[in-house]
Protein backbone atom coordinates (compact mmCIF):
# COMPACT_ATOMS: atom_id res chain seq x y z
CA UNK A 1 0.00 0.00 0.00
CA UNK A 2 1.26 3.45 -0.86
CA UNK A 3 0.52 6.33 1.50
CA UNK A 4 0.51 10.07 0.78
CA UNK A 5 2.14 10.74 4.14
CA UNK A 6 5.02 9.20 6.07
CA UNK A 7 3.18 9.93 9.33
CA UNK A 8 0.20 7.91 8.20
CA UNK A 9 2.41 5.08 7.03
CA UNK A 10 4.13 4.92 10.41
CA UNK A 11 0.82 4.80 12.26
CA UNK A 12 -0.58 2.15 9.90
CA UNK A 13 2.50 -0.01 10.36
CA UNK A 14 2.20 0.29 14.14
CA UNK A 15 -1.48 -0.70 14.16
CA UNK A 16 -1.00 -3.56 11.74
CA UNK A 17 1.32 -5.27 14.22
CA UNK A 18 -1.70 -5.98 16.44
CA UNK A 19 -3.11 -9.50 16.30
CA UNK A 20 -5.97 -9.76 13.83
CA UNK A 21 -5.36 -6.33 12.30
CA UNK A 22 -4.40 -6.13 8.63
CA UNK A 23 -3.23 -3.13 6.64
CA UNK A 24 -6.73 -2.04 5.65
CA UNK A 25 -8.12 -2.10 9.17
CA UNK A 26 -4.98 -0.33 10.39
CA UNK A 27 -5.64 2.46 7.88
CA UNK A 28 -9.25 2.74 9.03
CA UNK A 29 -8.12 3.06 12.65
CA UNK A 30 -5.53 5.68 11.70
CA UNK A 31 -8.03 7.80 9.77
CA UNK A 32 -10.50 7.45 12.63
CA UNK A 33 -7.90 8.91 15.00
CA UNK A 34 -7.35 11.86 12.65
CA UNK A 35 -11.04 12.63 12.39
CA UNK A 36 -11.39 12.77 16.18
CA UNK A 37 -10.62 15.70 18.43
CA UNK A 38 -6.87 15.95 18.92
CA UNK A 39 -7.35 15.59 22.68
CA UNK A 40 -8.84 12.15 22.27
CA UNK A 41 -5.89 10.89 20.26
CA UNK A 42 -3.51 12.30 22.85
CA UNK A 43 -5.55 10.57 25.56
CA UNK A 44 -4.99 7.27 23.76
CA UNK A 45 -1.27 7.99 23.46
CA UNK A 46 -1.12 8.73 27.20
CA UNK A 47 -2.91 5.47 28.05
CA UNK A 48 -0.48 3.49 25.90
CA UNK A 49 2.56 5.21 27.42
CA UNK A 50 1.23 4.61 30.90
CA UNK A 51 0.59 0.99 30.14
CA UNK A 52 4.04 0.43 28.73
CA UNK A 53 5.92 2.24 31.50
CA UNK A 54 3.88 1.53 34.61
CA UNK A 55 2.57 -2.00 34.22
CA UNK A 56 3.77 -4.37 36.90
CA UNK A 57 3.50 -8.07 37.52
CA UNK A 58 2.40 -9.26 40.95
CA UNK A 59 5.47 -10.72 42.63
CA UNK A 60 3.44 -13.57 44.11
CA UNK A 61 1.14 -14.72 41.33
CA UNK A 62 2.62 -12.88 38.28
CA UNK A 63 -0.75 -11.53 37.23
CA UNK A 64 -0.77 -8.04 35.75
CA UNK A 65 -1.06 -5.57 38.58
CA UNK A 66 -0.92 -1.87 39.51
CA UNK A 67 1.10 -2.55 42.63
CA UNK A 68 3.91 -4.95 43.61
CA UNK A 69 1.23 -7.29 45.02
CA UNK A 70 -2.02 -7.59 43.07
CA UNK A 71 -5.50 -6.99 44.51
CA UNK A 72 -6.35 -10.68 44.57
CA UNK A 73 -3.18 -11.71 46.44
CA UNK A 74 -3.59 -8.79 48.84
CA UNK A 75 -7.17 -9.75 49.69
CA UNK A 76 -6.88 -11.64 52.99
CA UNK A 77 -10.52 -12.77 52.89
CA UNK A 78 -9.70 -15.10 50.00
CA UNK A 79 -8.78 -18.72 50.67
CA UNK A 80 -4.99 -18.60 51.01
CA UNK A 81 -4.66 -22.40 50.96
CA UNK A 82 -6.07 -22.83 47.43
CA UNK A 83 -4.14 -21.74 44.34
CA UNK A 84 -5.47 -21.98 40.81
CA UNK A 85 -2.73 -22.35 38.17
CA UNK A 86 -3.58 -20.76 34.79
CA UNK A 87 -1.78 -19.95 31.55
CA UNK A 88 -2.42 -16.21 31.37
CA UNK A 89 -4.41 -13.25 32.61
CA UNK A 90 -7.39 -13.93 30.35
CA UNK A 91 -7.95 -17.18 32.23
CA UNK A 92 -7.94 -15.29 35.54
CA UNK A 93 -10.63 -12.97 34.19
CA UNK A 94 -12.69 -15.91 32.93
CA UNK A 95 -12.52 -17.71 36.29
CA UNK A 96 -13.22 -14.53 38.31
CA UNK A 97 -16.30 -13.94 36.16
CA UNK A 98 -17.77 -17.26 37.28
CA UNK A 99 -18.06 -15.92 40.84
CA UNK A 100 -17.42 -19.52 41.97
CA UNK A 101 -13.81 -19.21 43.00
CA UNK A 102 -12.42 -17.65 46.14
CA UNK A 103 -8.81 -18.84 46.18
CA UNK A 104 -5.63 -17.30 44.79
CA UNK A 105 -3.98 -17.64 41.37
CA UNK A 106 -0.67 -18.43 39.82
CA UNK A 107 -0.18 -17.15 36.27
CA UNK A 108 2.38 -19.19 34.32
CA UNK A 109 2.62 -16.84 31.37
CA UNK A 110 1.84 -19.53 28.77
CA UNK A 111 1.82 -23.29 28.25
CA UNK A 112 4.72 -25.63 27.52
CA UNK A 113 5.19 -25.60 23.72
CA UNK A 114 8.67 -26.83 22.75
CA UNK A 115 7.98 -26.15 19.05
CA UNK A 116 7.75 -22.46 19.84
CA UNK A 117 10.69 -22.58 22.22
CA UNK A 118 8.49 -22.30 25.31
CA UNK A 119 9.77 -24.70 27.95
CA UNK A 120 9.33 -24.80 31.73
CA UNK A 121 12.14 -22.26 32.15
CA UNK A 122 10.21 -19.66 30.18
CA UNK A 123 7.19 -20.10 32.46
CA UNK A 124 6.71 -19.29 36.15
CA UNK A 125 6.99 -22.90 37.26
CA UNK A 126 10.09 -22.57 39.48
CA UNK A 127 8.36 -19.67 41.20
CA UNK A 128 5.33 -21.90 41.82
CA UNK A 129 7.55 -24.46 43.55
CA UNK A 130 9.05 -21.71 45.74
CA UNK A 131 5.60 -20.49 46.58
CA UNK A 132 4.61 -23.95 47.82
CA UNK A 133 7.69 -24.23 50.03
CA UNK A 134 6.06 -22.17 52.80
CA UNK A 135 3.47 -24.92 53.29
CA UNK A 136 0.54 -22.53 53.41
CA UNK A 137 -0.95 -23.79 50.16
CA UNK A 138 -2.87 -27.07 50.57
CA UNK A 139 -4.41 -27.47 47.14
CA UNK A 140 -3.43 -26.61 43.58
CA UNK A 141 -6.20 -26.40 41.00
CA UNK A 142 -4.81 -26.81 37.48
CA UNK A 143 -7.04 -24.93 35.03
CA UNK A 144 -5.64 -25.22 31.52
CA UNK A 145 -7.18 -25.40 28.08
CA UNK A 146 -8.12 -28.93 27.03
CA UNK A 147 -5.34 -29.10 24.45
CA UNK A 148 -2.20 -31.14 24.09
CA UNK A 149 -0.15 -28.18 25.42
CA UNK A 150 -2.49 -27.85 28.41
CA UNK A 151 -2.16 -31.57 29.18
CA UNK A 152 1.63 -31.47 28.86
CA UNK A 153 1.88 -28.52 31.23
CA UNK A 154 -0.43 -30.19 33.75
CA UNK A 155 1.48 -33.49 33.61
CA UNK A 156 4.76 -31.63 33.99
CA UNK A 157 3.65 -29.74 37.08
CA UNK A 158 2.20 -32.97 38.49
CA UNK A 159 5.57 -34.69 38.04
CA UNK A 160 7.52 -31.80 39.52
CA UNK A 161 5.38 -31.78 42.65
CA UNK A 162 5.34 -35.54 43.13
CA UNK A 163 5.99 -36.52 46.74
CA UNK A 164 4.86 -33.20 48.17
CA UNK A 165 2.09 -33.20 50.70
CA UNK A 166 -0.30 -31.19 48.58
CA UNK A 167 -3.55 -31.96 46.85
CA UNK A 168 -3.56 -31.44 43.08
CA UNK A 169 -6.89 -31.16 41.31
CA UNK A 170 -7.93 -30.22 37.80
CA UNK A 171 -11.07 -28.62 36.41
CA UNK A 172 -13.70 -31.10 35.22
CA UNK A 173 -14.22 -31.62 31.49
CA UNK A 174 -17.38 -32.68 29.77
CA UNK A 175 -20.59 -31.63 28.13
CA UNK A 176 -21.13 -27.88 28.18
CA UNK A 177 -24.24 -26.49 29.84
CA UNK A 178 -27.00 -26.14 27.26
CA UNK A 179 -25.04 -28.41 24.92
CA UNK A 180 -26.81 -31.18 23.01
CA UNK A 181 -25.42 -34.64 23.70
CA UNK A 182 -25.60 -35.72 20.07
CA UNK A 183 -23.39 -32.81 19.00
CA UNK A 184 -20.68 -33.42 21.60
CA UNK A 185 -17.47 -34.71 20.02
CA UNK A 186 -16.66 -38.33 20.80
CA UNK A 187 -13.53 -37.61 22.85
CA UNK A 188 -15.35 -35.24 25.21
CA UNK A 189 -18.33 -37.55 25.48
CA UNK A 190 -16.12 -40.61 25.96
CA UNK A 191 -14.24 -38.89 28.75
CA UNK A 192 -17.45 -37.72 30.40
CA UNK A 193 -18.55 -41.33 30.55
CA UNK A 194 -15.21 -42.68 31.77
CA UNK A 195 -15.01 -40.06 34.52
CA UNK A 196 -18.68 -40.03 35.42
CA UNK A 197 -19.68 -38.61 38.79
CA UNK A 198 -22.30 -39.66 41.38
CA UNK A 199 -25.70 -38.16 40.63
CA UNK A 200 -26.70 -35.32 42.90
CA UNK A 201 -30.26 -34.14 43.11
Amino acid at each position, binding site marked *: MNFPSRLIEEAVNAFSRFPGIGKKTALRLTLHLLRQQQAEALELARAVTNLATNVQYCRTCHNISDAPVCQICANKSRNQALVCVVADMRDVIAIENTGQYNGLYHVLGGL*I*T*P*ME*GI*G*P*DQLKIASLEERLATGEVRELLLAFSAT*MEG*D*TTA*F*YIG*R*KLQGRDIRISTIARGISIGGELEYA*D*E*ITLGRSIQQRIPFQS
Partner: protein
Amino acid sequence: MKLKSLSLMNYRVAERQDWHFEADVVSITGANGTGKTNILDAIHYMCLTRSYFNQQDQQLVRFGEDFFNLQAQIMEEEAENKLFCAWQGGKKVLRKNGVVYDRLADHIGLFPVVMIAPTDLDLIYEGSEARRRFADMLLSQTDHAYLLALMRYNKILQQKQALLRQYKQEGRVDITLLDVLDMQLLPLNVELYSKRVAWLDQYNPLFEALYRSISGDREQVGIRYESSFNALEPALAMQQAGKDDLASGRCSVGIHRDDLLFTINGHPVKRFGSQGQQKSFLISLKLAQSIYLSEVMGKKPFLLLDDIFEKLDGQRVSSLLRLVQEERFGQIFLTDTDKKRVEAIFRPHNTAVQYIEL
Protein backbone atom coordinates in the same frame (compact mmCIF):
# COMPACT_ATOMS: atom_id res chain seq x y z
CA MET B 1 -22.53 -44.93 -3.33
CA LYS B 2 -22.76 -43.15 -6.68
CA LEU B 3 -21.11 -39.95 -7.74
CA LYS B 4 -23.72 -38.10 -9.78
CA SER B 5 -21.97 -34.85 -10.56
CA LEU B 6 -18.70 -33.06 -10.03
CA SER B 7 -17.72 -29.44 -10.63
CA LEU B 8 -14.19 -28.11 -10.61
CA MET B 9 -13.14 -24.49 -10.52
CA ASN B 10 -9.47 -23.48 -10.71
CA TYR B 11 -8.51 -26.96 -9.50
CA ARG B 12 -5.03 -27.61 -10.91
CA VAL B 13 -5.40 -27.38 -14.72
CA ALA B 14 -9.21 -27.06 -14.78
CA GLU B 15 -10.63 -23.58 -15.14
CA ARG B 16 -14.27 -24.49 -14.95
CA GLN B 17 -15.74 -27.95 -15.52
CA ASP B 18 -19.09 -29.56 -14.78
CA TRP B 19 -19.50 -33.29 -15.15
CA HIS B 20 -22.50 -35.56 -14.83
CA PHE B 21 -22.01 -39.25 -14.30
CA GLU B 22 -24.64 -41.87 -15.05
CA ALA B 23 -22.93 -45.24 -15.30
CA ASP B 24 -21.12 -47.54 -12.89
CA VAL B 25 -18.08 -47.34 -15.13
CA VAL B 26 -16.99 -43.92 -16.37
CA SER B 27 -14.25 -43.76 -18.97
CA ILE B 28 -12.43 -40.47 -19.43
CA THR B 29 -10.23 -40.38 -22.50
CA GLY B 30 -8.12 -37.76 -24.20
CA ALA B 31 -4.58 -36.85 -25.18
CA ASN B 32 -1.89 -36.22 -22.59
CA GLY B 33 -2.23 -32.93 -20.75
CA THR B 34 -6.00 -32.57 -21.24
CA GLY B 35 -6.74 -32.98 -17.52
CA LYS B 36 -7.94 -36.57 -17.21
CA THR B 37 -6.06 -37.29 -14.01
CA ASN B 38 -7.26 -33.95 -12.70
CA ILE B 39 -10.85 -35.19 -12.58
CA LEU B 40 -9.86 -38.32 -10.66
CA ASP B 41 -7.82 -36.26 -8.24
CA ALA B 42 -10.78 -33.93 -7.65
CA ILE B 43 -12.89 -36.97 -6.69
CA HIS B 44 -10.12 -38.08 -4.35
CA TYR B 45 -10.00 -34.59 -2.83
CA MET B 46 -13.73 -34.49 -2.19
CA CYS B 47 -13.56 -37.83 -0.38
CA LEU B 48 -10.39 -37.36 1.66
CA THR B 49 -9.93 -33.54 1.65
CA ARG B 50 -6.51 -33.89 0.05
CA SER B 51 -4.91 -34.52 -3.29
CA TYR B 52 -3.77 -38.05 -4.06
CA PHE B 53 -0.42 -36.68 -5.10
CA ASN B 54 0.42 -35.43 -1.62
CA GLN B 55 0.58 -31.82 -2.67
CA GLN B 56 -0.03 -28.78 -0.52
CA ASP B 57 -3.44 -27.22 -1.14
CA GLN B 58 -1.78 -24.05 -2.34
CA GLN B 59 -0.11 -25.92 -5.18
CA LEU B 60 -3.49 -27.18 -6.38
CA VAL B 61 -4.70 -23.72 -7.34
CA ARG B 62 -4.73 -23.08 -11.08
CA PHE B 63 -1.81 -20.94 -12.19
CA GLY B 64 -2.52 -17.23 -11.82
CA GLU B 65 -5.60 -17.71 -9.56
CA ASP B 66 -5.89 -17.47 -5.79
CA PHE B 67 -8.63 -19.98 -4.97
CA PHE B 68 -10.19 -23.24 -6.05
CA ASN B 69 -13.44 -24.94 -5.29
CA LEU B 70 -15.02 -28.31 -5.87
CA GLN B 71 -18.61 -29.50 -5.72
CA ALA B 72 -19.96 -32.99 -5.79
CA GLN B 73 -23.25 -34.78 -5.51
CA ILE B 74 -23.10 -38.29 -4.10
CA MET B 75 -26.10 -40.60 -3.79
CA GLU B 76 -26.13 -43.17 -1.01
CA GLU B 77 -29.11 -45.48 -1.37
CA GLU B 78 -31.84 -42.84 -1.66
CA ALA B 79 -30.04 -40.10 0.26
CA GLU B 80 -28.38 -37.28 -1.61
CA ASN B 81 -25.20 -35.68 -0.26
CA LYS B 82 -24.08 -32.33 -1.60
CA LEU B 83 -20.44 -31.59 -0.94
CA PHE B 84 -18.75 -28.26 -1.40
CA CYS B 85 -15.10 -27.57 -0.72
CA ALA B 86 -13.30 -24.26 -1.20
CA TRP B 87 -9.73 -23.20 -0.61
CA GLN B 88 -8.62 -19.59 -0.55
CA GLY B 89 -5.63 -17.91 1.02
CA GLY B 90 -4.71 -20.83 3.24
CA LYS B 91 -8.27 -21.38 4.47
CA LYS B 92 -10.20 -24.50 3.60
CA VAL B 93 -13.94 -24.82 4.06
CA LEU B 94 -15.83 -28.05 3.55
CA ARG B 95 -19.61 -28.26 3.63
CA LYS B 96 -21.84 -31.29 3.52
CA ASN B 97 -25.46 -30.49 2.70
CA GLY B 98 -24.83 -26.87 3.64
CA VAL B 99 -23.31 -27.62 7.04
CA VAL B 100 -19.71 -26.53 7.55
CA TYR B 101 -17.40 -29.10 9.15
CA ASP B 102 -15.74 -27.96 12.38
CA ARG B 103 -13.07 -30.57 11.84
CA LEU B 104 -12.12 -31.86 8.39
CA ALA B 105 -11.18 -35.15 10.04
CA ASP B 106 -14.88 -35.82 10.62
CA HIS B 107 -15.39 -36.08 6.86
CA ILE B 108 -12.73 -38.71 6.28
CA GLY B 109 -14.25 -42.17 6.03
CA LEU B 110 -17.75 -41.08 4.96
CA PHE B 111 -16.99 -41.59 1.27
CA PRO B 112 -14.22 -44.17 0.87
CA VAL B 113 -12.03 -44.02 -2.22
CA VAL B 114 -9.13 -45.95 -3.74
CA MET B 115 -6.87 -44.61 -6.46
CA ILE B 116 -4.48 -46.57 -8.67
CA ALA B 117 -1.99 -44.40 -10.55
CA PRO B 118 1.36 -44.76 -12.30
CA THR B 119 3.03 -42.94 -9.38
CA ASP B 120 2.19 -45.93 -7.17
CA LEU B 121 5.61 -47.33 -8.03
CA ASP B 122 6.78 -44.89 -5.34
CA LEU B 123 5.25 -47.27 -2.83
CA ILE B 124 7.88 -49.82 -3.79
CA TYR B 125 10.80 -47.54 -4.49
CA GLU B 126 10.45 -44.55 -2.16
CA GLY B 127 11.21 -44.37 1.54
CA SER B 128 9.04 -45.69 4.33
CA GLU B 129 6.95 -42.52 4.54
CA ALA B 130 5.00 -43.38 1.38
CA ARG B 131 4.12 -46.82 2.77
CA ARG B 132 3.09 -45.44 6.15
CA ARG B 133 0.86 -42.93 4.36
CA PHE B 134 -0.72 -45.81 2.42
CA ALA B 135 -1.56 -47.65 5.64
CA ASP B 136 -2.61 -44.51 7.49
CA MET B 137 -4.96 -43.27 4.77
CA LEU B 138 -6.62 -46.66 4.66
CA LEU B 139 -6.98 -47.08 8.42
CA SER B 140 -8.13 -43.48 8.82
CA GLN B 141 -11.06 -44.20 6.52
CA THR B 142 -12.23 -47.28 8.41
CA ASP B 143 -11.43 -46.17 11.95
CA HIS B 144 -12.06 -42.60 13.05
CA ALA B 145 -10.39 -43.22 16.41
CA TYR B 146 -7.24 -44.26 14.53
CA LEU B 147 -7.18 -40.95 12.66
CA LEU B 148 -7.69 -38.91 15.83
CA ALA B 149 -4.98 -40.86 17.67
CA LEU B 150 -2.61 -40.43 14.73
CA MET B 151 -3.17 -36.66 14.58
CA ARG B 152 -2.57 -36.42 18.32
CA TYR B 153 0.52 -38.59 18.06
CA ASN B 154 2.01 -36.42 15.31
CA LYS B 155 1.41 -33.27 17.31
CA ILE B 156 3.11 -34.57 20.44
CA LEU B 157 5.90 -36.07 18.35
CA GLN B 158 6.63 -32.66 16.80
CA GLN B 159 6.95 -31.19 20.27
CA LYS B 160 9.28 -33.98 21.33
CA GLN B 161 11.42 -33.60 18.23
CA ALA B 162 11.70 -29.85 18.81
CA LEU B 163 12.73 -30.54 22.39
CA LEU B 164 15.37 -33.13 21.45
CA ARG B 165 16.88 -30.77 18.88
CA GLN B 166 16.98 -27.99 21.43
CA TYR B 167 18.57 -30.20 24.10
CA LYS B 168 21.21 -31.39 21.67
CA GLN B 169 22.14 -27.82 20.78
CA GLU B 170 22.15 -26.53 24.33
CA GLY B 171 23.55 -29.63 25.99
CA ARG B 172 21.04 -29.20 28.83
CA VAL B 173 18.19 -31.58 29.52
CA ASP B 174 14.90 -31.52 31.40
CA ILE B 175 14.22 -35.24 31.81
CA THR B 176 10.88 -34.61 33.49
CA LEU B 177 9.53 -32.84 30.42
CA LEU B 178 10.72 -35.62 28.09
CA ASP B 179 9.08 -38.16 30.42
CA VAL B 180 5.83 -36.22 30.30
CA LEU B 181 5.81 -36.28 26.49
CA ASP B 182 6.72 -40.00 26.42
CA MET B 183 3.96 -40.69 28.89
CA GLN B 184 1.50 -39.16 26.41
CA LEU B 185 3.06 -40.90 23.39
CA LEU B 186 3.09 -44.37 24.95
CA PRO B 187 -0.66 -45.16 24.92
CA LEU B 188 -0.90 -43.76 21.37
CA ASN B 189 2.02 -45.93 20.25
CA VAL B 190 0.32 -48.98 21.78
CA GLU B 191 -3.03 -48.17 20.16
CA LEU B 192 -1.69 -47.35 16.69
CA TYR B 193 0.74 -50.27 16.64
CA SER B 194 -1.87 -52.83 17.63
CA LYS B 195 -4.34 -51.45 15.09
CA ARG B 196 -1.77 -51.70 12.32
CA VAL B 197 -1.00 -55.31 13.34
CA ALA B 198 -4.68 -56.22 13.39
CA TRP B 199 -5.21 -54.55 10.02
CA LEU B 200 -2.42 -56.53 8.34
CA ASP B 201 -3.74 -59.82 9.74
CA GLN B 202 -6.96 -59.17 7.91
CA TYR B 203 -5.43 -57.47 4.87
CA ASN B 204 -2.71 -59.96 3.91
CA PRO B 205 -5.06 -62.84 2.97
CA LEU B 206 -7.18 -60.50 0.80
CA PHE B 207 -4.07 -59.21 -0.87
CA GLU B 208 -2.58 -62.66 -1.53
CA ALA B 209 -5.83 -63.93 -3.04
CA LEU B 210 -6.07 -60.91 -5.33
CA TYR B 211 -2.47 -61.23 -6.42
CA ARG B 212 -3.05 -64.83 -7.42
CA SER B 213 -6.17 -64.04 -9.39
CA ILE B 214 -4.66 -61.00 -11.15
CA SER B 215 -1.29 -62.42 -12.06
CA GLY B 216 -2.14 -66.09 -12.37
CA ASP B 217 1.23 -66.66 -10.73
CA ARG B 218 1.99 -68.97 -7.89
CA GLU B 219 4.52 -66.81 -6.02
CA GLN B 220 3.89 -66.19 -2.37
CA VAL B 221 3.44 -62.47 -1.75
CA GLY B 222 2.97 -60.65 1.52
CA ILE B 223 3.32 -57.51 3.54
CA ARG B 224 5.45 -57.66 6.65
CA TYR B 225 5.04 -55.00 9.30
CA GLU B 226 8.40 -53.78 10.53
CA SER B 227 8.25 -51.90 13.80
CA SER B 228 10.50 -51.22 16.74
CA PHE B 229 7.71 -52.76 18.81
CA ASN B 230 7.84 -56.20 17.14
CA ALA B 231 10.67 -57.30 19.42
CA LEU B 232 10.17 -55.10 22.46
CA GLU B 233 7.20 -53.87 24.44
CA PRO B 234 6.53 -50.22 23.53
CA ALA B 235 7.26 -48.95 27.05
CA LEU B 236 10.59 -50.76 27.14
CA ALA B 237 11.60 -49.84 23.58
CA MET B 238 10.91 -46.16 24.22
CA GLN B 239 12.79 -46.24 27.49
CA GLN B 240 15.83 -47.93 25.93
CA ALA B 241 15.96 -45.41 23.08
CA GLY B 242 15.98 -42.49 25.50
CA LYS B 243 19.74 -42.04 25.84
CA ASP B 244 20.58 -42.47 22.16
CA ASP B 245 17.83 -40.06 21.23
CA LEU B 246 19.32 -37.39 23.47
CA ALA B 247 22.71 -37.87 21.84
CA SER B 248 21.36 -37.84 18.27
CA GLY B 249 18.64 -35.23 18.79
CA ARG B 250 16.12 -37.49 17.05
CA CYS B 251 13.21 -39.58 18.14
CA SER B 252 14.20 -43.06 16.92
CA VAL B 253 11.42 -45.23 18.33
CA GLY B 254 7.71 -45.08 17.63
CA ILE B 255 5.08 -45.76 15.02
CA HIS B 256 6.40 -42.84 12.94
CA ARG B 257 9.39 -45.04 12.09
CA ASP B 258 7.45 -48.13 11.09
CA ASP B 259 7.71 -49.58 7.62
CA LEU B 260 5.90 -52.12 5.50
CA LEU B 261 8.12 -54.65 3.80
CA PHE B 262 6.64 -55.90 0.53
CA THR B 263 7.81 -59.44 -0.16
CA ILE B 264 7.66 -61.96 -2.95
CA ASN B 265 8.64 -65.50 -2.00
CA GLY B 266 10.00 -64.02 1.20
CA HIS B 267 12.31 -61.53 -0.55
CA PRO B 268 11.86 -57.77 -1.01
CA VAL B 269 9.81 -57.13 -4.14
CA LYS B 270 11.87 -53.99 -4.70
CA ARG B 271 14.95 -56.03 -5.57
CA PHE B 272 13.60 -59.45 -6.46
CA GLY B 273 10.35 -58.68 -8.26
CA SER B 274 10.28 -58.45 -12.06
CA GLN B 275 8.57 -55.40 -13.58
CA GLY B 276 5.50 -57.49 -14.30
CA GLN B 277 5.42 -58.87 -10.78
CA GLN B 278 5.75 -55.36 -9.33
CA LYS B 279 2.82 -54.18 -11.46
CA SER B 280 0.64 -57.07 -10.31
CA PHE B 281 1.82 -56.47 -6.76
CA LEU B 282 0.75 -52.82 -6.76
CA ILE B 283 -2.59 -53.36 -8.43
CA SER B 284 -3.43 -56.21 -6.05
CA LEU B 285 -2.34 -54.04 -3.13
CA LYS B 286 -4.78 -51.33 -4.17
CA LEU B 287 -7.66 -53.59 -5.15
CA ALA B 288 -7.29 -55.33 -1.79
CA GLN B 289 -7.66 -51.87 -0.28
CA SER B 290 -10.98 -51.48 -2.07
CA ILE B 291 -12.24 -54.86 -0.91
CA TYR B 292 -11.00 -54.29 2.63
CA LEU B 293 -12.87 -50.97 2.76
CA SER B 294 -16.06 -52.62 1.46
CA GLU B 295 -15.83 -55.42 4.01
CA VAL B 296 -15.15 -53.20 6.99
CA MET B 297 -17.40 -50.29 6.09
CA GLY B 298 -20.21 -52.05 4.30
CA LYS B 299 -19.99 -49.74 1.28
CA LYS B 300 -17.96 -50.06 -1.86
CA PRO B 301 -15.40 -47.29 -2.40
CA PHE B 302 -15.05 -45.27 -5.58
CA LEU B 303 -12.29 -46.88 -7.61
CA LEU B 304 -10.12 -44.44 -9.57
CA LEU B 305 -7.95 -46.07 -12.23
CA ASP B 306 -5.50 -43.60 -13.70
CA ASP B 307 -3.98 -44.73 -16.95
CA ILE B 308 -3.52 -48.38 -15.99
CA PHE B 309 -4.71 -50.23 -19.09
CA GLU B 310 -1.94 -49.05 -21.34
CA LYS B 311 0.60 -50.75 -19.13
CA LEU B 312 -1.23 -54.00 -18.40
CA ASP B 313 -1.09 -57.06 -20.58
CA GLY B 314 -4.22 -58.81 -21.77
CA GLN B 315 -4.23 -61.48 -19.08
CA ARG B 316 -4.11 -59.00 -16.20
CA VAL B 317 -6.76 -56.82 -17.82
CA SER B 318 -9.16 -59.71 -18.18
CA SER B 319 -8.55 -60.84 -14.58
CA LEU B 320 -9.33 -57.30 -13.49
CA LEU B 321 -12.52 -57.21 -15.54
CA ARG B 322 -13.64 -60.51 -14.12
CA LEU B 323 -13.51 -58.93 -10.67
CA VAL B 324 -15.48 -55.97 -11.98
CA GLN B 325 -18.09 -58.37 -13.39
CA GLU B 326 -18.38 -60.06 -10.02
CA GLU B 327 -19.33 -56.62 -8.69
CA ARG B 328 -16.57 -56.67 -6.14
CA PHE B 329 -15.98 -52.95 -6.68
CA GLY B 330 -18.00 -49.75 -6.46
CA GLN B 331 -18.33 -47.07 -9.13
CA ILE B 332 -15.24 -46.99 -11.34
CA PHE B 333 -13.65 -43.95 -12.95
CA LEU B 334 -10.85 -44.65 -15.38
CA THR B 335 -8.66 -42.63 -17.68
CA ASP B 336 -6.87 -43.61 -20.85
CA THR B 337 -5.32 -41.91 -23.86
CA ASP B 338 -7.16 -44.23 -26.26
CA LYS B 339 -10.94 -44.54 -26.24
CA LYS B 340 -10.82 -47.47 -28.68
CA ARG B 341 -8.72 -49.48 -26.25
CA VAL B 342 -11.24 -48.95 -23.46
CA GLU B 343 -14.13 -49.85 -25.76
CA ALA B 344 -12.34 -52.98 -26.86
CA ILE B 345 -11.78 -54.01 -23.26
CA PHE B 346 -15.33 -53.49 -22.05
CA ARG B 347 -17.42 -54.38 -25.13
CA PRO B 348 -17.16 -58.16 -24.81
CA HIS B 349 -18.23 -57.97 -21.16
CA ASN B 350 -21.48 -56.20 -21.80
CA THR B 351 -20.74 -53.61 -19.12
CA ALA B 352 -22.50 -50.23 -19.37
CA VAL B 353 -19.79 -47.62 -19.74
CA GLN B 354 -20.17 -43.85 -19.94
CA TYR B 355 -17.59 -42.36 -22.28
CA ILE B 356 -16.29 -38.85 -21.72
CA GLU B 357 -13.84 -37.49 -24.27
CA LEU B 358 -11.70 -34.47 -23.44
